[in-house]
């Protein structure tokens, strides 16, 4: 841990910008949880000591420039195809640690086929899925995860299930696939939940490092700007509405399953 001297006193720095981030300030809007998510991912990577084994896949969305913020090898890929690209890279370099960073439009709309099939194949990659219930980058259009009644630039009267369907729950959809090793949904709305999110992300990388299969962490995030609220109102909305529609929790945990299986074996045996 870094130690600095301030006004004659020695201090250790107990919180600062993690090493796996570059020095470039985030270009996200003030209060945007993309930043928070970047930060905890980088902390996890620092803690696991895998910075130089990581290959990041930047998807198209507000995080399109994530490759400028994370300090390891990166590729920026077509909208929705991050998990296909990750598959190709991981199969060629099984020792690399593959991370995709994707928004809800990217992962659940245009890229849902790639998402489901990568998970079903049990690709050893880690997917960070930032669900902010909207298309941030393009200016606030409806996402597959937009809540019912929510107004967006393409659902100006609020999302109406009969016309345009229901918010899609990706964690619930993927968890039953046998290729999934770890699937969790976390939230960014306060410090406690951010810490939980970090723990989940660490587990997701561990699933990859231990060759268990596909891992995904769905991160409920704000997009104040396109929700037309302040950052504080934004995280409040995440807490009050997003988590109600998208229940937090671990949807698949291969270690728990293995334990349970062993238990059953023992009981049987």
């Amino acid at each position, binding site marked *: 841990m870094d*130690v*600095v001297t*301030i006004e004659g*006193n*020695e*201090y*250790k*720095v*107990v*919180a*600062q*910008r*993690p090493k796996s*981030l570059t020095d470039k*300030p*985030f270009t*996200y*809007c*003030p*209060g*945007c*949880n*993309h*930043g*928070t998510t970047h*930060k905890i991912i980088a902390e996890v990577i620092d803690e696991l000591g895998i910075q130089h084994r990581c290959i990041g896949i930047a998807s198209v969305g507000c995080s399109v420039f994530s490759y400028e913020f994370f300090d390891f090898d990166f590729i920026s890929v077509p909208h929705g195809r991050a998990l296909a690209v990750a598959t190709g890279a991981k199969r060629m370099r099984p020792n690399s640690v593959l991370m995709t960073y994707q928004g809800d439009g990217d992962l659940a709309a245009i890229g849902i086929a790639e998402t489901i099939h990568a998970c079903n194949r049990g690709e050893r990659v880690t997917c960070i899925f930032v669900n902010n219930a909207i298309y941030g980058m393009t200016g606030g259009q409806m996402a597959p995860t937009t809540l019912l009644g929510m107004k967006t630039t393409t659902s100006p009267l609020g999302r109406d299930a009969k016309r345009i369907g229901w918010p899609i729950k990706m964690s619930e959809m993927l968890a039953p696939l046998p290729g999934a090793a770890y699937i969790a949904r976390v939230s960014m709305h*306060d*410090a406690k939940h*951010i*810490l939980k999110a970090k723990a989940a992300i660490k587990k997701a990388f561990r699933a990859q490092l231990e060759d268990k299969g596909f891992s995904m962490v769905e991160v409920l995030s704000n997009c104040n700007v396109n929700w037309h609220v*302040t*950052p*504080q109102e934004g*995280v409040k909305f995440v807490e009050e509405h997003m988590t109600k529609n998208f229940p937090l929790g671990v949807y698949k945990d291969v270690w728990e399953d293995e334990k349970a299986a062993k238990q059953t074996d023992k009981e049987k045996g």
Partner: protein
Amino acid sequence: MPMIEILDDTCKGCLLCIPACPHELIHNTKAKLNKRGLYPVEYVDPDGKCTGCRLCSIVCPDAAIRVYKEVKKKSA
């Protein structure tokens, strides 16, 4: 005594850290514009109440808060 530092030019004035601090040590003073043209928050802790709990830093989307804890002097 623990303390924090707001990196003025990194801070975007989102104000998320303010409610995060249990001791209300961070304030939206709008005292200065940073080089992005935004108002960074200010850390005001005359009584040294900061516990170094890092909650402010955890919620900061822009990693604009450094948290320091004094190094325990070995039997000085």
